[in-house]
């Protein structure tokens, strides 16, 4: 059943392409219907599949000569991320309701992207996973380049090239693992049991981890993220930060760590306390957390704050992965979900609700606009989203980051300490953005008042309210009752830990 999430999304993209041009309303409704259908399937799949071990959905021989299977399967981790994708897809369509330029093409690219993402999360054949992974790259280039804003062509190209460089690193390891294992199969399970030598894993692991990590915003390969997020149209930033970055993290978890667990073994010697690739990446993750937060603190563009905050939050995911213990990994997966929802929400507010009305994202301009009064919906929406993003208890972020921190404590308390600094700075930059964008005390000049009266900001539309409610509800539900996802994630992580990693 879950396989239909993929097919439906691609079918939706095809339908959008075939729709008559100039019928924007129709294109929107069609996109929404397809996204909703995918989301519905994802929910149903989640409800039925929760707590079950990995279940195979489709297994067909695809390329016999290379032993490649069309193998779709889902375990708890996949289910959670598929759910996230469905959520992001629906919210993305809702927040793109005001796109008038080449509407059907926009939704075609969007749905194709979503289809690719569903595919990655459901693939249990490394090759298939890679194919879907690449499928997701191209649409996002066009989404940003055509419908984006600030320096969109540059950002789109940068994003595409970074992604492609990352995926070529993945491809190299894929080829090497396939050639080395001699198992004549690219199924993740077969490759994991192929008995790849520790020496091979030792160099394959860092290569593929970085390859996927680029998309996950691994410092110092994160630079595509802020520019890409800023330039992208709202729905694309939402999906980019919400789901695409998760593709990278998911790849790190499922492929890099699942197939090459010995890559994280100690080297046998250590340099300033770094004794394995695991230490290296954990430290990079921590640097990402602190650096992202620190840089977010000094941005003058509202969207850049969110862009860098994504780098910081994704650092938690990567740190959670590198803890290699049950609680840390569970936290990492939960953080993927949480950040997916929250980043979507934040980008939606900044990009759609605010920017599309004010046409500026500079704090210096926003300060004089009294947005808390003129756009109370945006202001209070951002308050809620910001709180959630800060990791306030009651929202999904808290429990996820808590788990990561606890896990990292068991692994290495220094990491926890440094990441804690990131959280504190995180509170600071969110607060600063909130204050400057919405609740500034600056007294408006007479000229500004005049302007304000002349240009009333457009009213909030129902898709915005619906999208906002959807994402907020998701974060709240998970924050208030994390068991709903943890019950799915924990057994899957346990299997993963028992099966390969460590």
């Amino acid at each position, binding site marked *: 059943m879950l396989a239909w999430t993929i097919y439906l999304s691609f079918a939706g993209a095809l339908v959008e392409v075939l729709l008559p041009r100039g019928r924007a309303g129709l294109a929107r409704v069609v996109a929404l219907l397809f996204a909703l259908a995918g989301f519905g399937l994802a929910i149903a799949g989640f409800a039925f599949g929760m707590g079950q071990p990995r279940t195979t959905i489709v297994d067909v021989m695809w390329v016999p000569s290379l032993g490649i299977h069309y193998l779709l399967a889902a375990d708890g981790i996949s289910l959670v991320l598929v759910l996230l994708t469905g959520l992001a897809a629906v919210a993305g369509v809702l927040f793109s309701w005001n796109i008038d330029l080449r509407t059907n093409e926009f939704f075609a690219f969007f749905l194709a992207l979503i289809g690719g993402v569903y595919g990655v999360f459901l693939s249990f054949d490394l*090759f298939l996973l890679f194919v879907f992974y690449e499928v997701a790259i191209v649409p996002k280039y066009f989404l940003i380049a055509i419908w984006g804003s600030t320096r969109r*062509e540059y950002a789109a190209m940068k994003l595409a090239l970074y992604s492609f460089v990352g995926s070529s690193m993945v491809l190299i390891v894929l*080829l090497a693992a396939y050639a080395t294992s001699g198992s004549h199969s690219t199924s993740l399970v077969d490759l994991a049991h192929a008995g790849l030598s520790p020496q091979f894993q030792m160099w394959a692991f860092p290569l593929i981890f970085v390859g996927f990590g680029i998309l996950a915003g691994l410092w110092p390969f994160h630079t595509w993220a802020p520019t890409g997020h800023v330039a992208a149209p709202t729905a694309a930033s939402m999906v980019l930060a919400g789901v695409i970055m998760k593709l990278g993290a998911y790849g790190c978890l499922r492929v890099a760590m699942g197939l090459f667990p010995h890559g994280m073994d100690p080297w046998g010697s250590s340099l300033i306390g770094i004794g394995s690739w695991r230490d290296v990446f954990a430290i990079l993750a921590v640097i990402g957390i602190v650096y992202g937060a620190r840089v977010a603190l000094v941005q003058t563009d509202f969207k850049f704050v969110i862009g860098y905050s994504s780098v910081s939050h994704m650092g938690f995911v990567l740190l959670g992965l590198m803890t290699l213990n049950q609680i840390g990994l569970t936290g990492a997966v939960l953080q993927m979900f949480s950040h997916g929802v929250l980043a979507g929400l934040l980008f939606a507010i900044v990009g759609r609700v605010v920017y599309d009305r004010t046409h500026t994202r500079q704090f210096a301009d926003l300060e004089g606009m009294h947005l808390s009064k003129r756009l109370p919906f945006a202001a209070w929406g951002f308050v809620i989203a910001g709180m959630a993003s800060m990791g306030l208890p009651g929202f999904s972020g808290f429990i996820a980051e808590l788990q990561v921190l606890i896990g990292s404590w068991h692994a290495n308390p220094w990491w926890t300490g440094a990441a804690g600094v990131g959280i504190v700075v995180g509170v600071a930059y969110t607060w600063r953005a909130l204050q400057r964008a919405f609740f500034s005390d600056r007294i408006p000049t007479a000229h500004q008042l005049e302007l304000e009266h002349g240009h009333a900001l457009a009213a909030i539309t129902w898709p915005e309210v619906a999208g906002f409610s959807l994402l907020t509800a998701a974060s709240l539900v998970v924050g208030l009752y994390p068991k709903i996802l943890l019950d799915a994630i924990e057994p899957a992580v346990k299997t993963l830990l028992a099966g390969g990693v460590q």
Partner: protein
Amino acid sequence: MNYAELFRATLPETVLEIAALLVLVVDLGFVRKAAMKTRAGCAALVGIAGCIAALWVLPLAGTYSAGKERLLAAGGSAGVAQAGILILTALTLFLLIDSKFSRNPGEYVAVVLMSAAGGMIISAAQDLLVIFIGLELLSLGLYILTAFAKQSGKSAEAAVKYYLFGGMSAAFLLFGFSYLYGLSGSTSLPRVVLGTYVAAGNGGSPLLYIALVMVAAGLGFKVAAVPFHLWAPDTYEGAPAPAAAFIASVSKVASFALLISISSVGIHFMESLPLTGGRMILRAFTSGTPQPPVVLGLPYGWGLILTVLSAASMLVGNLAALAQLSVRRLLAYSAIAHAGYILLGLAFFSWTNASAQAILYYILTYGLTTVGAFGVVGVVERATGTDRFDGFLGLHKRNPLLAAVLLVLFLSLAGIPPLVGFWAKFNLFAAVLGVGGGVVPFALVALAVGFSAVSLYYYLQVLKRAYVMPPIDETPIKVNAVTMAALMLIAAGVVVFGCFPALLQNWIASFDPVL
């Protein structure tokens, strides 16, 4: 000499030649007074029919030997390459229908068919002389085709350059061949290869290496490998679009098929050298049986030369393509880069037929994609008068279907799954790594994959014009229905073969070598 056998062996080529004559007869005899469009249509139609007929008789073709020495092989990779040549030739003829560069479509088609016949001969050739004759037949046709747009100075200039470089390289090749003959005392490929091993075993005669370098130079010219690539950008730019498509696809297929024959023989000899020598030659054709993995035997030799050519082509092709502003030149440099990838497959050639099949898969799909790409370029050129990037501005608005075809083809060239270009690369690189471990093949594959990432940049430059940047001119571009259908067929092929790669793989594997 058995003429019946010879006739049977060259049946497809003969069919092509007859078709070529038929085209001239029909064009000059029956429709001479008709409108240009009709004449072009008729000529193309007859030509296509000829290709189909040749394809039909292809399975009947057998091997041909003079005495003990085999001159022409049949089936196997040769068969695949020949079938590919015929299909691609037919597709390039479709592009003719809509073009207006020549007032003599009949002549054009005839030359194309004759060149294709040359390509078919080299695909199957097992003897140095046959190889050379086939190459010349092919090349002469290509020079004429390049110059076919008689009103265009560019076309003439390109043809002259192509001709001069081609002549030079033919000389090199002949020079190399004569040394090889001198070393081995035979022009038969298996014996020649054996001779090189004997020479290498005797302490490595310097003549051998001169010979290998010369041959590499000659063949490198045909596949446009760096540093023998200089003709390619100018030719691709100057030749009429259908001719350029033909050069970029058919001639490449034929040349790589030749390289495959050379490599296949060579590898097997390495294995059997310590045994009895000549008698083992026949095993060359029973490849596929499991054999111990063979690493390149020569410390420096053919494989090394190919490796160097491959690395240089990838490097120069991809980097130079970054700086291009003309789509044709872009395609030329990208062709150089693709030749680099394929040469990598030849440099690390596998004992099993995995390598041969991977290379054939690559070159056929690449040819298919390139024909489509030149088709689109031709259409855009006719509408805007230029093949520069700016001509593609706003293509998605001017003709969405054409833009979609361009999107599919260029993404396939960049190696984006699930399009066929990706599978080709994957197949090829998997075959390279499957040959044996070691750092060198791995590093080269890493280089190749890395350059694929780079290549996305320049392909996206064109797609960016077509989809992203604002159009200057919004008038719709009209495309002849037949051309459009052919282009869509190609794009559909790229997608379908990409989604179901086993289709093409099984087809290639279904060609059994004829013993």
